């Protein structure tokens, strides 16, 4: 007898990963070619652009490591069907292209140097190359895939107390379901563990994981102290404070509810993929654009993102479902929220019923149903920067 495992229809990649989208990606390897990448992407229906605004050769230390991790990961994200790499640095562009080739992902690479340093020529040649890739990947078909192939990124932004009360615990239920199905779930935003780290440490799968969580929090806290930064006004930010969050501890206690209740397998570096199934935490900046890109680089195919007062930002590559439980927000930003959880806040829907609705919606989106962010063309990827450059 064939046992029926939970599954969804996804795109099977040559490297074994499974995508929930089949994006034609135009990726600018350096900053000088981002405007050209924008022109090319705007000319190819449905193409997505991601730009790395820095010269990787000038980056130092943690920035160099982060850049490399993200640059090698993003063009072979499971949701990418084909990628056009353009850049201003031929060796670097070739290095990334070789990595993409190894993964077996359809691609083409062009540099300004190949085009007489003329952006117009690069635009024309890039358009033709991207069009050919788009045609090629249009033949790709979805096929059944196990939920174990999925990584879920969990984010919150422009939070209010309804986030900690209802929406983040709802995401926690999604994290638990994903982990129980054999998939991966990741939360980041290290500064938003301050005051709640003891609860994360208690869930650590091993003593060294608890210590890594503790150390990551101490590093962020000491950085704030060293820089004379009063977190109140920064995180919680002005919008959080206006909405009723009074301290980082209060925000953090709500934030970590997103991670659910399963054991925490480890602390990931920014953009680092989870090496095995389960719940993971990523030591990363809290700002939504940088945080989501950390999950994208870790090959999260889907994001769940709660908001208190509203937050339009989504990942460019991973469909991002927005959730709010604040009744005023749900009434105001209907074309932003993929799930209205305000009835849980008002006590007329059980959290379990809302969790069933959100899980169903997540699986529909995994199989191609659109998020509001996709329909409205929101979406970007922003790789975090830490220090000075040459």
């Amino acid at each position: 007898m064939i046992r029926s495992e939970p599954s969804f229809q996804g795109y099977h990649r040559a490297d074994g990963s499974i995508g929930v989208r089949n994006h034609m990606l135009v990726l600018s390897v350096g900053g000088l070619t981002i405007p050209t990448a924008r022109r090319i992407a705007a000319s190819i229906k449905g193409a997505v652009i991601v730009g790395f605004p820095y010269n990787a050769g000038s980056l130092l230390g943690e920035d160099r490591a982060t850049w490399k991790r993200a640059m090698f990961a993003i063009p072979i994200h499971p949701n990418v069907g084909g990628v056009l790499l353009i850049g201003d640095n031929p060796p670097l562009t070739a290095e990334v292209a070789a990595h993409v080739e190894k993964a077996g992902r359809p691609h083409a690479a062009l540099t300004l140097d190949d085009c007489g340093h003329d952006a117009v020529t690069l635009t024309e040649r890039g358009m033709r190359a991207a069009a050919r890739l788009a045609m090629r990947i249009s033949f790709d078909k979805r096929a059944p895939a196990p939920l174990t192939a999925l990584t879920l990124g969990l984010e919150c932004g422009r939070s209010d107390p309804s986030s900690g009360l209802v929406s983040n615990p709802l995401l926690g239920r999604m994290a638990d379901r994903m982990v129980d199905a054999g998939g991966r779930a990741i939360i980041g935003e290290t500064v938003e563990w301050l005051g709640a780290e003891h609860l994360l440490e208690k869930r650590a799968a091993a003593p060294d994981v608890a210590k890594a969580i503790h150390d990551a929090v101490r590093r962020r806290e000491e950085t704030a102290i060293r820089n004379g930064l009063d977190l109140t006004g920064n995180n919680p930010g002005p919008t959080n404070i206006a909405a009723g969050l009074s301290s980082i501890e209060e925000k953090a206690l709500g934030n970590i509810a997103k991670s659910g209740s399963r054991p925490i397998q480890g602390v990931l570096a920014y953009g680092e993929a989870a090496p095995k199934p389960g719940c993971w935490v990523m030591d990363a900046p809290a700002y939504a654009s940088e945080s989501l890109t950390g999950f994208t680089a870790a090959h999260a195919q889907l994001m769940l993102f709660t908001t208190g007062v509203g937050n339009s930002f989504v990942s460019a590559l991973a469909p991002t479902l927005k959730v709010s439980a604040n009744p005023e927000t749900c009434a105001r930003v209907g074309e932003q929220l993929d799930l209205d959880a305000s009835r849980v806040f008002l006590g007329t829907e059980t959290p379990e019923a809302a969790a069933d609705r959100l899980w169903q919606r997540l699986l529909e989106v995994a199989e191609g149903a659109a998020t509001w962010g996709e329909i409205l063309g929101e979406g970007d990827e922003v790789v975090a920067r830490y220090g000075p450059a040459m």
Partner: protein
Amino acid sequence: MDAIRLSPDDNVATLLRAAKRGERLDIGDGASVEAIEDIPLCHKVALAALQPGDRILKYGETIGEATAPIRPGAHVHVHNLKSLRARAR
């Protein structure tokens, strides 16, 4: 219920609707508190009298300390609550 106390130890509750001064707020389990000032949706109301330095508890966990005397029914926010974290020691 007008405001929710997330843990029995908590000395604040979160408003599930905006409150006007003088309104009695049902906080569940037959308990209530009278708002002594207007408090917006999702903001916090004090359930007990607090002195400067007292820990403020929500989710059964410390979310900061009182920086001024706080009366039951008062709005608890950044004007009378301070984070204990990322402070120079």
